[in-house]
């Protein structure tokens, strides 16, 4: 019997040349807005408690998505503002930048949202998010002890993600 | 500025030459001040012609003072006594001191003997002003018209002075024309002088 793709995470991670302290935090939400994972590497400023912080983040993503779907200057049919969009439906966004941080966003077809907050100078992280999604599939979804929709507590996943984000450019 | 250049020390203040003053004023500062002047007057009036009159009055005071100052500074305490003389004095000397340039044109009215026009493509006072549609033909140049009236009146040339927008062919923006209609006595005197 042969196994394919068992030991390697595919695709292989994008080349990283980071200095090690670009990552601030990461969120993973499922489609119902449950925060499956929150990792924090460098966050000197905390204004809210964890639960409210997650709620605010999910709310912002939801609003931003309906905003971009409505704003989309290339399509005629934009639907109504505020009506929830299915994953992959309508114009979405992949990042925004402020003077203090950059937020990169990815949504999988199943509605898993991965959010990475890094330093504002970080480049395009779309490939990196895809890679993190792959890690999620490999280490979380394929873990028989994991119940979908519950907070992730897979040691292997956490350490791999930590390691990977540390080296992000 | 004190201590700049070779400023001679005068013991007696009367021996000091009359300074020309600093010739430049911040355009923004002027624009904001003028804007406030218009806004304040707007709160004091019920209709547009009233507003026009108030702006003109404000300008009149400026004109009267400018005449006094310029006769002293530029003309050796003499003033123009002839019609064309005073008009070109307004068109060049006054304009230059107030707006940093001579006016774009000075013309004689074609229909009436007693009418003259000073035209300006973009008067300084109107540089940043867009007139709302509901105000019709109102022109903030009324202030400039008031200045002109102030100069003329105090020099002994009473006149009615008004500001108008005049569309120019091939231009998006109309120019502003200051229309000067001299009083009858002025023309009579002018005729007498030959």
């Amino acid at each position, binding site marked *: 019997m042969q196994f394919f793709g068992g030991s390697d995470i595919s695709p292989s991670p994008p080349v990283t040349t980071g200095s090690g302290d670009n990552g601030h935090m990461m969120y993973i939400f499922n489609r119902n807005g449950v925060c499956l994972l929150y990792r924090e590497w460098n966050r000197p400023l905390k204004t809210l408690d964890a639960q409210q912080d997650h709620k605010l983040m999910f709310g912002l993503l939801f*609003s931003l998505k309906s905003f971009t779907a409505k704003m989309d*200057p290339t399509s005629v049919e934009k639907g109504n503002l505020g009506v929830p969009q299915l994953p992959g439906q309508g114009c979405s966004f992949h990042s925004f930048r402020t003077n203090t941080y950059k937020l990169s966003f990815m949504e999988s077809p199943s509605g898993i949202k991965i959010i990475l907050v890094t330093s504002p100078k970080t480049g395009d992280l779309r490939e990196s998010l895809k890679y993190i999604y792959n890690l999620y599939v490999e280490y979380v979804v394929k873990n028989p002890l994991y119940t979908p929709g519950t907070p992730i507590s897979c040691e292997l996943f956490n350490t791999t993600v930590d390691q990977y984000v540390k080296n992000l450019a | 500025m004190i201590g700049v250049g070779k400023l001679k020390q005068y013991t007696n203040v009367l021996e000091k030459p009359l300074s020309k003053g600093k010739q430049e004023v911040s355009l923004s500062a002027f624009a904001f001040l003028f804007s*406030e002047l218009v806004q304040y007057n707007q709160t004091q009036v019920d209709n547009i012609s009233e507003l026009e009159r108030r702006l003109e009055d404000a300008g009149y005071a400026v004109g009267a003072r400018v005449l006094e100052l310029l006769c002293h500074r530029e003309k050796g305490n003499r003033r123009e006594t002839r019609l064309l003389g005073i008009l070109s004095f307004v068109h060049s000397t006054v304009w230059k001191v107030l707006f940093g340039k001579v006016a774009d044109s000075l013309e004689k009215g074609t229909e009436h003997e007693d009418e003259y026009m000073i035209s300006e493509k973009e008067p300084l006072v109107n540089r940043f002003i867009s007139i709302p549609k509901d105000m019709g033909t109102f022109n903030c140049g009324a202030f400039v018209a008031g200045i002109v009236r102030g100069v003329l009146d105090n020099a002994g040339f009473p006149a009615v002075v008004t500001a108008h927008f005049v569309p120019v062919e091939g231009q998006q923006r109309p120019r502003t024309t200051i229309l000067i209609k001299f009083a009858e006595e002025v023309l009579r005197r002018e005729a007498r002088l030959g």
Partner: protein
Amino acid sequence: MDGAAIYSLFIINKSGGLIFYKDYGSTGRMDTNDSLRLASLWHSMHAISQQLSPTVGCSGVELLQADTFDLHCFQSLTGTKFFVVCEPGTQRMEALLKFIYELFADYVLKNPFYEMEMPIRCELFDLNLLQAVQKDRVASLSR
């Protein structure tokens, strides 16, 4: 530089009200209601993005990269927000926004007939804005 790369311009007052909106050729035009709601939505998202900052001193979103457009936002010290929606990757939008802010300061704020925080209806602002957005002008903005 392609002038058609700019889709639209919004100006939002400090309480989130839309005071200026101009479309430069989006597909499927928005009606007034939609543009008003988008403006106030952007206003609140801009504020939330400051709360979520991991470090102090965040002044809100400057660039949003969506699938089909980029949105560049500039907020003045007094809280007025300007944003342009343009084709992804359009360059020099920061300079354009700064220039639009200058036009706003000149032709709107110095106009005695403009009421603060109210919708902008100033002929001179429209005229100068049009010139700034036209394609040959965008290139000359990098002064």
